[in-house]
């Protein structure tokens, strides 16, 4: 089996005994090795061979999971900033090289409980800070569709693992678009759930008011089923909401009566005309499926990048204070001779790469005495205005919003050296993180052979609506457009 088998197909075949789980896991491990060793894509930071084979053997004789596990026998990959017991957890950083996690994230426990099998931990921009996976201390991942291009980031390894056909589903994490942007660049589906929908216990914290575990998949149904498995209250994460998890099925439905907003700020005059054209086609399809397309405005959109790049680094500077060479990870070389403070300073400057150092410094600056009000407090006030834009549109009868996911298709490795230019990759995605609403990207066609992502957003905890619109659009566009 090559290419993109769906999770649903694998699970059905495994449950009926048509395919052995050990064979499924072995094939996924072989594809993972081929993708990295033969094809040089650098997708995995570690492959979980023994772990996966042991899990597969245990599942083979597990009658309960065979009957009930929604992802029985489905191989999956996970971004290497999410903890899995006994597996390495590097966050793409030298400071955690060699660190092995002593526990598993709640999302991992729920996937494994549903019968899914971990194949490996995927590459990422260091501590999820980046939009291309080039900031990994362990080298960039290449886009499986065009290996001279980036896969996007920061969940570039997870997106590439799905796009290369290694696994049908993978977990990533989002702070400003880190699942949706690589999904768009790799031609797959990427979902950022509502803030609070999925437990973050075991996700290494970056920006705590923004972070959310997300899903990469080949199609809308697989993403919806995976979200249903990992979503829901977890007493180990105080920000995980006590909201019931509906039976997302991701099946296409008629869109009659559905109002889809087209926010004008996401279609600026200088938008790549090829992307604008694909979006116009998708909006035509949505109209054809019965939806009403309504022009709307989210007037504070242009302020999202400045707000995001104050809030996220501020929170990161606090969250990353724990990496100091005392309890875990690597202590700086020659660091212990001059006392504790020098050990901290040496460990951190040797352990963190340039982008992480830049953001810690930026975050510390905007939180420091004399600058807090001008930057951080101001950004959090403007963030309220951005969130209010969404609230107003959704309470005014709009069920979902449709926009491009990214302003450009995948770009060449090494082509963006200016930090702020890279930050602009998140221009259409970071608003959903700032407002906490759910959002997803799905393939809506290609330009010059490269995939284009269309983004759907809906109101807080209304993923069901987002999935039904996405599934309808996905089935109407058909395989030729993906």
């Amino acid at each position, binding site marked *: 089996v090559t290419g993109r088998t769906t999770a649903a197909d694998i699970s059905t075949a495994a449950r009926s005994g048509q395919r052995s789980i050990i064979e499924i896991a072995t094939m996924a491990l072989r594809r993972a090795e081929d993708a990295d060793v033969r094809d040089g894509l650098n997708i995995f930071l570690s492959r979980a061979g023994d772990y996966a084979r042991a899990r597969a053997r245990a599942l083979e004789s597990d009658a309960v999971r065979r009957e009930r596990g929604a992802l029985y026998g489905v191989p999956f990959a996970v971004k290497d900033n999410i903890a899995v017991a006994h597996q390495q957890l590097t966050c793409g950083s030298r400071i955690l090289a060699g660190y092995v996690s002593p526990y598993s994230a709640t999302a991992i426990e729920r996937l494994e409980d549903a019968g899914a099998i971990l194949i490996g931990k995927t590459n990422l921009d260091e501590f999820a800070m980046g939009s291309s996976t080039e900031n990994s201390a362990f080298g960039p991942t290449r886009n499986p569709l065009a290996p001279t291009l980036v896969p996007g980031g920061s969940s570039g390894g997870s997106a590439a693992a799905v796009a290369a056909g290694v696994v049908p589903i993978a977990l990533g994490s989002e702070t400003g678009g880190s699942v949706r942007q690589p999904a768009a660049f790799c031609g797959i589906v990427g979902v950022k759930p509502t803030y609070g929908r999925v437990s973050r216990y075991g996700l290494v914290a970056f920006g705590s*008011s923004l972070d959310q575990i997300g899903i990469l998949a080949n199609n809308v149904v697989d993403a919806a089923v995976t979200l249903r498995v990992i979503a829901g209250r977890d007493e180990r994460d105080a920000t995980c909401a006590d909201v019931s998890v509906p039976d997302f099925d991701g099946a296409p439905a008629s869109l009659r009566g559905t109002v889809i907003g087209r926010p004008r700020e996401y279609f600026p005059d200088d938008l790549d005309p090829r992307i604008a054209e694909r979006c116009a086609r998708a909006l035509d399809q949505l109209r054809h499926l019965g939806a009403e397309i309504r022009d709307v405005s989210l007037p504070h959109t242009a302020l999202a990048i400045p707000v995001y790049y104050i809030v996220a680094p501020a929170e990161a500077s606090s969250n990353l204070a724990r990496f100091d060479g005392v309890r875990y990870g690597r202590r700086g070389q020659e660091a212990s001779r001059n006392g504790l403070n020098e050990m901290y300073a040496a460990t951190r400057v040797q352990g963190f790469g340039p982008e992480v150092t830049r953001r810690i410094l930026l975050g510390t600056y905007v939180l420091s005495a004399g600058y807090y009000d001008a930057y951080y407090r101001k*950004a959090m006030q403007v963030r309220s205005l951005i969130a209010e834009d969404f609230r107003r549109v959704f309470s005014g009868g709009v069920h979902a919003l449709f926009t491009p996911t990214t302003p450009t298709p995948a770009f060449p490795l090494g082509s963006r050296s200016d930090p702020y230019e890279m930050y602009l990759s998140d221009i259409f995605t970071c608003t959903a993180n700032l407002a906490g609403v759910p959002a997803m990207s799905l393939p809506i066609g290609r330009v010059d052979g490269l995939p284009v992502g269309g983004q759907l957003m809906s109101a807080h905890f209304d993923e069901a609506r987002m999935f039904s619109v996405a599934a309808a659009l996905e089935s109407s566009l058909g395989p030729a457009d993906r």
Partner: protein
Amino acid sequence: MPDAITVDEVRRVARLARLGLTDEQARGLAHDLNTILEHMNVLSRVDTTAASEYTAARAVMPLRADHGPPPVRPLATLPETFAPEMRDGFFVVPRLATHEDAEP
């Protein structure tokens, strides 16, 4: 918005962030931060007199009853397997600087 950030300012913030920068790194970061913060100046022109600071929807994130945290599950591996240096169950660190060798 505040004035441009100097290299000395970068060194001061790096000390707060416990980052031991070289001079070359400090110069490069002063340039980067000034470039980035220039793009942030647009925020100072936004009228936020009626805006409160953003908070997430706490209503759906209930606080737990005040009877201690969830039970701690045993770790799959002990800290000795991942800590840089341990002795008798304690993390070992270099000595703190004394008054004599503290920075003036």
